[in-house]
């Protein structure tokens, strides 16, 4: 009898397990279907398309192996060797942009984070103020930048006042300053997000190290460079990788300042804008997929570095 009761209980435990599992599957079903259909399957499909000659009207034309990748390799609009900035090539434009914008937005983000965290009054207000540009849409903020940086805009009016003569440089209209102007714009907008990362990291620095520094008589400047800055090392890594990946994806601002052309003289042609033009404007899907794969491999390598450095905490085990 004891045995019968036990097996019955086991059965109900088993039934409960099954019910829980079924409910679990039901809860994750739709999200997993979406992820499968629009993330995981496309990833495989991208490699498949990249190995084919695939046009917009004709559809799939035939297997071409690595031909598309060889074309990317030889594409002088995509990249040239040796590397040359301001050459109007998509990949070097993108790297040049990343090289300039990453240190700038990190420095700006860290500066505002440290200032906001320094025990000033109105901490919440300033944090919101510095985050404000990061809230705004890329289209709106780019429209504002186009206005401020036009030949007769606020920036040039300011410079004219300082130098004492009419200064009317068209920042976005000149190929030698167009991409640099996007650098300035995005360093400014993205610094708010970088600030949030740095603030979270600053808050996890224990107070006693500051106390020790104060007792040792270190001033604020010294405390920052000798204590705060080194202790933020994990945050520096994290922020750097996030901003490099973000920089390599530059698209919206480049599209809007050039109406999608990448001009003037190819100066705002970024890798993703080039991918967009090949795919959406020229309907060259096979070639577009190959460019997508190349960009993925570059970004993936960086993401892997990030995950190797931070992976355990991210997954939360």
């Amino acid at each position: 009898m004891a045995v019968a009761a036990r097996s019955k209980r086991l059965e109900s435990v088993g039934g409960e397990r099954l019910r829980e599992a079924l409910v679990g599957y039901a809860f994750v079903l739709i999200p997993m279907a979406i992820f499968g259909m629009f993330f995981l399957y496309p990833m495989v499909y991208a490699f498949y398309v990249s190995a084919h000659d695939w046009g917009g009207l004709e559809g799939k034309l035939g297997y071409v192996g690595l031909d598309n990748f060889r074309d990317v390799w030889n594409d002088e609009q995509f990249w040239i060797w040796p590397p040359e900035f301001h050459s109007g090539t998509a990949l070097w434009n993108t790297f040049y942009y990343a090289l300039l914008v990453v240190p700038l937005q990190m420095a700006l983000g860290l500066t505002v984070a440290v200032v906001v965290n320094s025990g000033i009054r109105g901490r919440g207000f300033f944090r919101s103020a510095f985050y404000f540009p990061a809230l705004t849409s890329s289209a709106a903020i780019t429209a504002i930048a186009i206005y401020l940086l036009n030949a007769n805009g606020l920036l040039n009016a300011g410079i004219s006042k300082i130098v004492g003569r009419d200064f009317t440089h068209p920042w976005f209209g000149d190929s030698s300053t167009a991409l640099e102007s996007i650098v300035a714009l995005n360093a400014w907008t993205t610094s708010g997000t970088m600030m949030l990362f740095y603030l979270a990291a600053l808050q996890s620095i224990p107070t006693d190290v500051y106390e020790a520094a104060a007792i040792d008589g270190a001033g604020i400047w010294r405390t920052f460079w000798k204590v705060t800055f080194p202790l933020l090392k994990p945050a520096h890594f994290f922020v750097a990788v996030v901003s490099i990946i973000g920089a390599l994806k530059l698209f919206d601002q480049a599209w809007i300042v050039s109406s999608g052309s990448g001009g003037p003289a190819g100066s705002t042609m970024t890798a993703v804008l080039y991918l967009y033009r090949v795919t959406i404007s020229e309907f060259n899907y096979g070639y577009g997929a190959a460019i997508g794969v190349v960009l993925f491999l570059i970004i993936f390598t960086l993401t892997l570095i990030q995950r190797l450095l931070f992976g355990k905490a991210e997954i939360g085990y």
Partner: protein
Amino acid sequence: MATRDREEAAPPYVAAVEELAAGEPVAVGAPATLDIPGRARTDRIGKVVAYAILLALALLYFVPFFWTVMTSLKTEAEALQGFKLFPENPSLHAYREVLTRDDLPFPIFFRNSLFLAGTITVVEVIFCSLGGYAFARLRFPGREVLFMLVLATLMIPDQLRLVPVYLLLTDFPLTSWNLTQTFRGYILINVVTAANLFLMRQYFLTIPKDYEEAARLDGAGYFKTYWRVMLPLATPALAAVAILSFQGIWNDFFWALIILGFGDSQKLTVQLGLAQFVTQYGGNWPAMMAAATMAILPVVIVYVFFQRYFVAGITAAGVKG
């Protein structure tokens, strides 16, 4: 020392989820004020320097927006006069001009953007909380593998997905629908994001198990436990997901451009309309700034009311967009 090493190595988003759960910054680290001889002077100098930097920075972050709003109230002629800060006769004519165009019908763009952002936000909150709860609490075979797949999608950049997703939507499997230039297609590909599902799961993990065990003892089923007990407890995370989702879709340019494009002027979002406005009427500064101001406004309103969730959500979910 060992403990400190671990604290130092904690990446920002760990603190962010804790902050969301605790309801306030987990402030360990604001520099302490101590009674140390000589400390007061350093403090004073520090304060002065901090406020000076702060003022300069606040100007840098604030002036462009102030200038934008002022210009939107000016006449076209006034907008060209360098430093002229305030308009002679502030008027809303530029706003009227933007809202009454026939070639770029902004009222329709607003309706479209609100519809898309609203729909996606509601659906995403439901699916991400259901999925997040299941991954955090329910036991089912293959859960870890499925969750690894969710995290794996974070590694797949939009750039790789562009061609395949576009092809998938032009000829949707089984139905042969062409979902490009449709809201259905746009909603479908944006309706769940791994970052938000991850955020929900992390939040559910911070809720003590006692609550659901009590509910289960009272005989509540799994769905009822989730709906009546867990969801109310997860309000901060739900708010964060809702806000991130709304902001992400409202501000989205990349996928809106690819899926909706410029083919049908009735199907543009506000951001696409603004980009088109910049292309076509580049020199009409008051109208352009009025359009930009209106494009920013909804997210600003959301931000003003739900700031805390915004900040914690962004840090926890990583950079979006």
